């Protein structure tokens, strides 16, 4: 992230209340992850020790330290999605994209395809439980996901069956 962009983000927060998480959230949204250099730059600019920033970034599931691919696919693993087959959707996605991650359901799950086109992540809950299972691609939600509908959704993002 450019120094200027980071400064613009920091300038949005005129009070210490909610500032650190707010800034980190903005970086995460803008870059898809939190680059180490940005974290180091931030540490100097807001005078918070890098160790403390690191502990925050690794504590909260919304932040990721791993670079992501061109498109980020986030699968919801909320309770409603779980009982309606989210694990099957994740399995199908892994097989379609030929990726194999550690299938732990914790929020830090992040696997990127070899061509760097797609990153698959897991979310706790989008609060869109009515149309479970749900997945999100680059901010757009797709409801009623199932292994059969996945290819058509992925094709919109440039995926082609091998």
């Amino acid at each position, binding site marked *: 992230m450019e120094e200027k962009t980071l400064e613009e983000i920091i300038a949005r927060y005129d009070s*210490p*209340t*909610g500032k650190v998480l707010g800034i980190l959230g903005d970086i995460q949204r803008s870059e898809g992850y939190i680059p180490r250099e940005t974290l180091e730059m931030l540490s100097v600019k807001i005078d918070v020790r890098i160790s403390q920033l690191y502990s*925050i970034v690794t504590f909260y599931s919304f932040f990721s330290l791993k670079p992501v691919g061109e498109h980020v696919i986030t699968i919801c693993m*909320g*309770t409603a999605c*779980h009982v309606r087959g989210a694990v099957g959707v994740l399995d199908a996605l892994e097989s379609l994209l030929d990726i194999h991650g550690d299938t732990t359901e914790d929020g830090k799950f992040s696997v990127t395809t070899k061509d760097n086109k797609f990153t698959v992540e897991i979310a706790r809950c*989008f*609060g869109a439980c*009515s149309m479970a299972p749900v997945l999100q691609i680059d901010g757009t939600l797709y409801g009623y996901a199932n292994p059969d509908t996945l290819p058509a959704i992925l094709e919109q993002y440039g995926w082609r069956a091998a």
Partner: protein
Amino acid sequence: MTGVFDRAAGEVAGQKKILPGKPRIAVGLATCGIAVGGEKVYERLQEIIKKTDADISLTKTGCIGYCREEPLVNITIPGKPLVILHKVTEEDAEGIVEAVKKGTVPYKKALCRVPSWDHVTGTVITYGNGFDEIPLYADVPFFKHQKKVILRNAGFINPEDIDEYLAVGGYATAEQALTRMDSETIISEVEKSGLRGRGGAGFPTGMKWRITRDAPGAAKYIICNADEGDPGAYMNRNEMESDPHMLIEGMIIGAYAMGAKKGLIYIRAEYPLAIRRLVHAIGEARALGLLGKNIIGAGFDFDIRIATGAGAFVCGESTALVASIEGRTGRPHPRPPRLTDPGGGLWGIPSDLNNVETWCNIPVIIRNGSGWYAKIGAEKNAGTKVFSLVGKVDRVGLVEVPLGTSLNTIVCDIGNGGAQGKKVKAVQTGGPSGGCIPVRLFDTPVNYESLNAVGSIMGSGGIVVMDEDTDMVDIARYFINFATGESCGKCVPCREGLRHTLILLNRLIARKGTAKDLETLALLADTIKNTSLCGLGQSAPNPVLTTLAYFREEYDALVKP
């Protein structure tokens, strides 16, 4: 710019928007409506209206809660009932505009009609009569057993237009409170109403307010917990997306009663639309003199700020939540000091923390009186509660019922039982801290005490339905896996105990477990429950304990040779 609050002007302007004297089409655009194509429907309608030069007012609204039927579109034709269309697609747009131009609606798409709507805070909007072939709102099975108090405006008004909120009685209560009531009267009304915290613990709201107000020091904070961390619960999202001003009004009244000049909404980053609508609503309120200096001309200063969370379930715990707002990892500390104590709240200032829905209850309590409110619901469980009825249930959606309504009514009458004709086996209430309740206990009234008695909790209001195909041991593992990941790691019973519980459950599911493992599992769950530092650990074993109690045979089947 802050003007002098002129409610009447906004009210008149808003009425002209709700009943514009010409047809109005309002598309349900909450997150759920957008995700199933609501925005495309809106854009297509806009295009056709423009192209055909139709004299139709097009706007957006929130979600009435019948999520299964989305996208929903409201049609208002002067003198006729408001008609709610369901499962509307882009292809339907042309037919809708054609029909509306002829003074009618596409009957085939109609879900129900609403001749008049009671916005509860003193305003009834009368739409009109006709379209008798379309079912009445009150006859639709999904709506029939519901009582809309919190969701009174959701799906009817445009959440991005303060005028429409003013037109349905909005901010009249804040005006009444700030200009004609004192702190003591307001707090006493909230106490007498019997309102209890809707975040899950059920602590009496009025008492918390009194403690905060009476805490030493002039400065106070009020905080709204909008972190809605329970997977499977989304009522707070809809409350903020569909009626953000209701929350702001509740906070204004609370701030005045407790003498707080600063308010904060702590909201999860996963809710971008709710954040956008709140930011917009706060801006509108400031512009009308409802937030900022000398609000409503009553000589009282109050403003609201938004802070975003970053996905940590433990931040539902009050001390962890405050740590998070202050820019630290969300690890709870032992209480006292509580948030309301000097040194315990945000930046050490005594702070009152209430859930979104708790705040949303305030305007209606003050407006209609504690006596009116206390009559809704059951003993020691006054008022209504919004539940997200999800999972393997036929009619999925947000359901608002008086507290004390039975699970049977919610799951079977409103939800119509299992999806695709499957048999319902259990519900899980209260998120990862709650438990699984078997179908034979569905006559349990949904109130704080009864749910505790069967081993679960009210929580924030998620009700996840499980059917005959659901593996209950897998559900227990799902929640323990969740809690293991969310444990902040500070105390041993939670950090280590949950990890070992997960290992045991994995072993059982892999059919490598023994009867001894089942004993260990029960003992471990009990230990974690009794010795953890905070609510997360104390409640995390509930899914295991309840499935062991009610679905023991499923565990036993896994250890048989």
